[in-house]
């Protein structure tokens, strides 16, 4: 349980961090909370030569609104997101999702940017990012670029980030008054990771008709995915009809090869995803906004 030897750098600005990463592209890792990386290093499964700690960079942890968008700094901790009164009001999916992550120690140290860059197949944030159609701002030596959540998660632990790029910010359109959201999760009893996690974001008209739906599911496949089958089955339908919700939720894992492990078989995961998709949709209605 002792890591292999490594160097440790604490840049004070994101530009310094990018420069350091560019010089050590193959054997450096970014430390952004470290609740996945440090355990892997202690088991010597990961042996980076250099850790670049983003913790000293002052202007990377924030939640603010600007031009109709919610902006979240990459180093904002899960706890900061969970306890933000502003967010609970404007975008409750984010606070619900943050509150469901791991335990309090993980939430105090772990960051949203770290979680997204790691892209664990059972992490909670990817589902929420997909449902909210978030934009992920990455910075590298050739400048900044914006990646849509739909394009960001590529495969198991694989994102659209290039080597040498660091997540700087997450941008989300501020939900309007007809938005309804919920995050519903089955946590693994030991790790707290999502066996299945479902993030639902709906636009609902005054007479409970679903105008648009976007639903992200994590924990089931090699990466989080949009449940497009459920989305199209809900669009234009009344949400106060139990049958509609059940039928739509049955499409939760269409076209997905579900993971199996010692805790949950593939069939069980698919079943859980369907049940919890239905529950999440029902909760969006009872949640209000």
């Amino acid at each position: 349980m002792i890591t292999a030897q490594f160097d440790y750098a604490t840049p004070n600005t994101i530009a310094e961090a990018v420069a350091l990463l560019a010089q050590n592209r193959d054997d450096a890792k970014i430390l952004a909370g470290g609740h996945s990386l440090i355990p892997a290093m202690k088991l010597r499964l990961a042996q980076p030569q250099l850790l670049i700690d983003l913790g000293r960079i002052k202007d990377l942890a924030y939640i603010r609104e600007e031009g109709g968008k919610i902006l979240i700094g990459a180093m904002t901790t899960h706890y900061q997101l969970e306890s933000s009164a502003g967010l609970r009001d404007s975008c409750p999916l984010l606070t619900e999702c943050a509150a469901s992550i791991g335990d309090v120690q993980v939430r105090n140290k772990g960051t949203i940017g770290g979680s997204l860059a790691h892209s664990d197949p059972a992490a909670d944030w990817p589902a929420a990012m997909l449902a909210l159609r978030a934009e992920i701002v990455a910075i590298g030596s050739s400048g900044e670029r914006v990646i849509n959540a739909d394009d960001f998660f590529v495969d198991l632990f694989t994102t659209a980030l290039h080597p040498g790029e660091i997540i700087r910010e997450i941008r989300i359109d501020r939900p309007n008054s007809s938005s309804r959201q919920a995050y519903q999760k089955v946590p693994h009893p030991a790790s707290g990771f999502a066996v299945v996690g479902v993030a639902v974001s709906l636009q609902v008209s005054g007479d409970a008709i679903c105008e648009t739906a976007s639903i992200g599911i994590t924990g089931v496949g090699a990466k989080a995915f949009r449940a497009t089958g459920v989305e199209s089955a809900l669009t234009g339908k009344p949400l106060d009809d139990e049958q509609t919700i059940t039928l739509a939720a049955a499409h939760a894992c269409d076209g997905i090869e579900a993971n199996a492990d010692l805790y949950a078989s593939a069939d069980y995961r698919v079943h859980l995803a369907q049940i919890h998709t239905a529950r999440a949709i029902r909760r969006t209605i009872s949640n209000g906004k």
Partner: protein
Amino acid sequence: MKIEGTHEINASRERVYECLTNAGVLKRCIPGCERLEKTGENVFATTIRTGVGSIKGVFNGTVRLEDMRPPEHYRLVVEGKGTPGFLKGTGDLDLEDHGKTTIVRYAGEVQVGGTIASVGQRMLQATARMMATQFFTALEAEAKTAKDAPPPKHGFFRTALRWFSGWLRRMFRSFA
């Protein structure tokens, strides 16, 4: 852990079988394979440097081909040991003629042990699936090129393909 799947490859069954038993082709197709040397009749020694995310490891092992019935079947026996753990497995590959394409069915049983198995159990199957996809994507590129032509450059192909599909998506988005 059971691993199974099918991949359709756009080449004749004879050509696919030839690729699947050629050390040079296999070396280029196995993700992270640094060395694949023939040490006996249908026995190879290999070094694979591979990983997902921040977890990386080097595996040394042997690959043996058994029960060979060209061009339809062989059995693969793999044994490997590395920094993150060890693995042992057997798998059957069956090739089926399907008009101009070939369907490769694989089914096997793999035992994984050591650190990687005790802490990474929930990731094993998804990792195996990802690597199988990478392998067969590369194999298809190999099978499509003529026997004597220079081998395709997988890294370049993949990068170009990714770039092109990203570009297409962006174009469609800007028109929508």
